[in-house]
């Protein structure tokens, strides 16, 4: 649905993105991650046909963003970073304008506007001026505007920034419900958001794609070993050396005690699940097993490792 090939863009002397390539399947929801100034907004602006790229090509919904920009624009919904809206218009008037300019036919317009207002929970404020709404509601109006033409592709630049936790959860649920019929690319700084909402991740750093793929694949790529956390009652040293004997275990760390139990972190090879063996061992020795779980590689760790790795590599290159 989205194919980006070696996209490059400069603002004067500043190169915002360089050779950015990725693709997103139809119906997918992909998180676009990166530190401040990485080039997320720039990439999305090019995809939304706001600005042309300096080099490379991008196709959205099968059309080229530069040479067939109108075709692309008919099929997308775009939520820019700061949700720019006309403060002097009422919510209903604005959405009617958005529907009309996006080519929703006159007969469908009322129904579509009512639908998106319903979906984004705006019915109560439809007569209010947008300028007088709270940030969260403005965000919803922005989202409603993006959805009003029932687009194939949604491009959302930081859709949950500045919302309270309840609203964040609501908006995330809304975005998640779009999966399937719509292809979504959303940028964010909030890493858990990607784990909750997205199927795939694209990490961009300093204008270049640093990593992309499903979360699991990234975890495997950047963390070849699995980590298991457990709490065991028993003499710490004995537990530690016993755990070390289990085949597949690479390293054991005693991290402290809580409630009279030792907290251990076991690093093991990914291809061999050592959890059953650990449980068995603890039972045989008649220690108490209070907790055992495999720590999922949090996206945060992946992200930090990817970005830190880049920094390191970047430092080397310039040195």
């Amino acid at each position, binding site marked *: 649905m989205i194919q980006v090939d070696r996209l490059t863009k400069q603002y004067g002397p500043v190169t915002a993105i360089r050779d950015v390539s990725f693709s997103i399947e139809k119906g997918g929801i992909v998180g676009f991650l990166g530190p401040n100034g990485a080039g997320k907004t720039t990439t999305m602006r090019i995809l939304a046909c706001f600005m042309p790229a300096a080099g490379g090509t991008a196709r959205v919904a099968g059309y080229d963003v530069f040479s067939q920009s109108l075709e692309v624009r008919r099929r997308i919904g775009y939520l820019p970073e*700061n949700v*720019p809206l006309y403060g002097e218009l009422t919510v209903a008037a604005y959405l009617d304008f958005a529907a009309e300019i996006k080519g929703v036919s006159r007969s469908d317009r009322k129904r579509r506007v009512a639908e998106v207002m319903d979906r984004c929970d705006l019915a109560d404020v439809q007569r209010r001026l947008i300028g007088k709404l709270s940030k969260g509601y403005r965000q919803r109006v922005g989202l409603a505007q993006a959805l009003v033409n029932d687009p194939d592709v949604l491009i959302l630049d930081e859709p949950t920034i500045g919302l309270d936790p309840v609203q964040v959860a609501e908006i995330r649920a809304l975005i998640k419900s779009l999966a399937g019929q719509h292809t979504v690319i959303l940028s964010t700084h909030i890493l858990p958001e990607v784990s909750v909402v997205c199927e795939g991740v694209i990490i961009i750093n300093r204008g270049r794609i640093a990593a992309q793929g499903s979360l699991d694949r990234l975890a495997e790529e950047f963390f070849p070993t699995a980590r298991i956390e457990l709490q065991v009652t028993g003499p710490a040293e004995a537990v530690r050396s016993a755990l070390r004997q289990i085949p597949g275990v690479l390293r054991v760390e005693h991290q402290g005690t809580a409630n009279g139990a030792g907290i251990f972190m076991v690093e093991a090879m990914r291809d061999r699940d050592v959890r059953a063996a650990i449980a068995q061992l603890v039972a045989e020795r008649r220690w108490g097993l209070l907790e055992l779980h495999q720590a999922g590689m949090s996206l945060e760790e992946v992200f930090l490792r990817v970005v830190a790795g880049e920094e390191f590599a970047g430092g080397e290159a310039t040195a």
Partner: protein
Amino acid sequence: MTGVRAVFKKEMRLYFTSPVAYVVFTFFLLIVGYFFYSIFAFYNLTSMQAAMNPAFARDLNVTDAIMRPLFSNTGIILLFFMPMLTMRLFAEEKRSGTIELLLTFPVRDGEVLAGKFAAAIVLFVMLLGLTALYPAIVGYFTRVEWGPLLSGYLGLLLLGSSFLAVGVLVSSLTENQIVASFATFAILLGFWVIGWSADLAGGNWRAVFQYLSILEHLDSFGKGVIDTKDVLYYLSVIALSLFLTLRALESKRWRG
């Protein structure tokens, strides 16, 4: 076409949700009304004198004594007010960032421009329509010549539309409404003042300056003469300004 309509409707809504349109309407009509009153009163005075001294009466007619000065005065007043109708059109979209969404909607830049320009023109035509009250008052007291009246209004329409086109162009070049308004005003003033320098300059320059002077072209309309030269002048000002506006929008896209 639906894109033009949508933009047009939005702009009309915004005109009437802000106080600018009301302020412009009120003060424009008041000032034109004041000029009308003083010209009319002066005409009354001279016709009274003419009644006593028939030698005067030969040169006295409503078109020359009331309508022509009224048209040229209105032209000058438009120069002050038109920039206020266009200052917001692009500058505010750029300042608030709404231009980013506007330019990603499935409409051509030209359609956006057409919708905005049309809204400004329609507002201006409404304003001009309200001033028809004054000729109507004249018509109540005496016979009006329809020809010069209509051609005079056509002249004002062309003149005002040129002002608006220049204003739209300037608005697309800045993010600040106040700057847009003052810069438009200064440019229009320049095109007016250039007519004065025509009197000082000699030879070919005189003709050039005279041709460039934006108010100079209004005069013959007031006499009931529609000269293609004048019409073409206004149409070229409009076309050139709108063309440059499109270029400005395009460059805005490249710069982000």
